[in-house]
């Protein structure tokens, strides 16, 4: 009797998980389809790019520069042992373009833009704006969520590219201007070792995947949030945790696929 109860509870829990996964998949497909539809209203998308992209610019640029500084210093200290300081440019650029650029940008993006998306959608729900739209026969997913989704997917690779470029600049400032590594060797080793398609292209592909991940997690969690102040605050936390873990897990899989 007791063990039968445990089994049935476990089964119903499993069923709930399955249903949640199914709902998420359905929501993802609907959002992707509607975001293509939303191209007919470019105004909404441009407003969202402004809100998501332009306002994330400062944090991305400053972090990129600082990460470049740190990479330049740490790389120099390690490479100096082997007498190959000239490889500093290569080290800084490869680490940024392949890994740090897409991943750190995506983590910052989840914190900066993902949370605001979740909170916005969650509060619209708590304020019954979403219900009001449904009453007026306006699809809230098409009108509110889809433009935000598309804008986030567009912004993410651009922000990652800016992050990497600023990081290379930071590495140059520390390595060449401050420490005095030969500028020609810095750039020539970099150019000799970084392939534009294999390294830069794959980095961009990664950042596009992360853009989809962050946007989907943020909007899904916000849209499913409980319509109370506590619900919205919990949803915001969930967005950061789930999006960050998803980014790191996906990064491992993508790296294994791309650079094997």
């Amino acid at each position, binding site marked *: 009797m007791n063990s039968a109860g445990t089994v049935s509870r476990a089964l119903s829990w499993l069923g709930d998980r399955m249903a949640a996964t199914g709902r998420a998949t359905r929501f993802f497909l609907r959002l992707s389809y509607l975001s293509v539809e939303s191209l007919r209203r470019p105004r909404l998308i441009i407003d969202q790019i402004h809100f998501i992209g332009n306002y994330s610019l400062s944090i991305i640029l400053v972090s990129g520069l600082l990460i470049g500084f740190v990479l330049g210093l740490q790389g120099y200290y390690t490479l100096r042992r082997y*007498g*190959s300081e000239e490889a500093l440019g290569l080290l800084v650029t490869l680490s940024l373009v392949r890994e740090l650029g897409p991943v750190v940008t995506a983590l910052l993006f989840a914190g900066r833009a993902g949370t605001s998306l979740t909170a916005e959608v969650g509060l619209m729900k708590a304020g019954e704006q979403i219900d009001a739209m449904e009453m007026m026969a306006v699809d809230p997913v098409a009108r509110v969520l889809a433009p935000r989704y598309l804008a986030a997917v567009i912004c993410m690779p*651009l922000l990652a590219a*800016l992050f990497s*470029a600023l990081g290379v600049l930071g590495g140059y400032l520390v390595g060449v201007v401050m420490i005095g590594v030969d500028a020609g060797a810095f750039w020539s080793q970099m150019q000799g070792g970084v392939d534009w398609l294999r390294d830069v292209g794959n980095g961009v592909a990664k950042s596009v995947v992360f853009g989809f991940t962050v946007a989907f997690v943020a909007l899904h969690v916000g849209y499913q949030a409980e319509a109370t102040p506590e619900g919205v605050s919990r949803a915001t936390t969930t967005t950061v945790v789930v999006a960050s873990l998803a980014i790191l897990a996906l990064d491992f899989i993508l790296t294994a696929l791309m650079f094997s």
Partner: protein
Amino acid sequence: MNRKGVDVLVGLFVLLGFAALVFLALRAGNMSSSLGLGETYQVVAKFDNIGGLKPRAAVRSAGVVVGRVVSVSLDDQTFQAVVRLELDTRYKFPKDTSAKILTAGLLGEQYIGLEPGGDSALLAPGGTLTLTQSAVVLENIIGQFLYKSAAEGDKK
């Protein structure tokens, strides 16, 4: 904010993003040649073997960077490597300057070392460095060492 302001800012953001992509794709291409050296003149040096010397490698004299390698090609008449160097016009070298291919550190990057001779005539732009010493290829040295020690072993 008004409509146009938003459009301009978004346009700026997208342009910046693409500029960053182009910068990464071209790997900051000719940045060093525009920032690194001023006026230059070109000379040619022919080597029997250049080892791992690559275009844009440094040219040093007494340890000071005085120029860069522009290009590396093979002369199919003499089967020698033809290395074009670009030297800073501030530095003039005698005509009998010799060029060596050296390595920074044990496994570091290869560069060209110039040793000035005693000739009073100066190396003209477009001139050729005739006294050259090839790169040291590690495999050849190991090969010679093994051959020598095998020969000594036979004598005993």
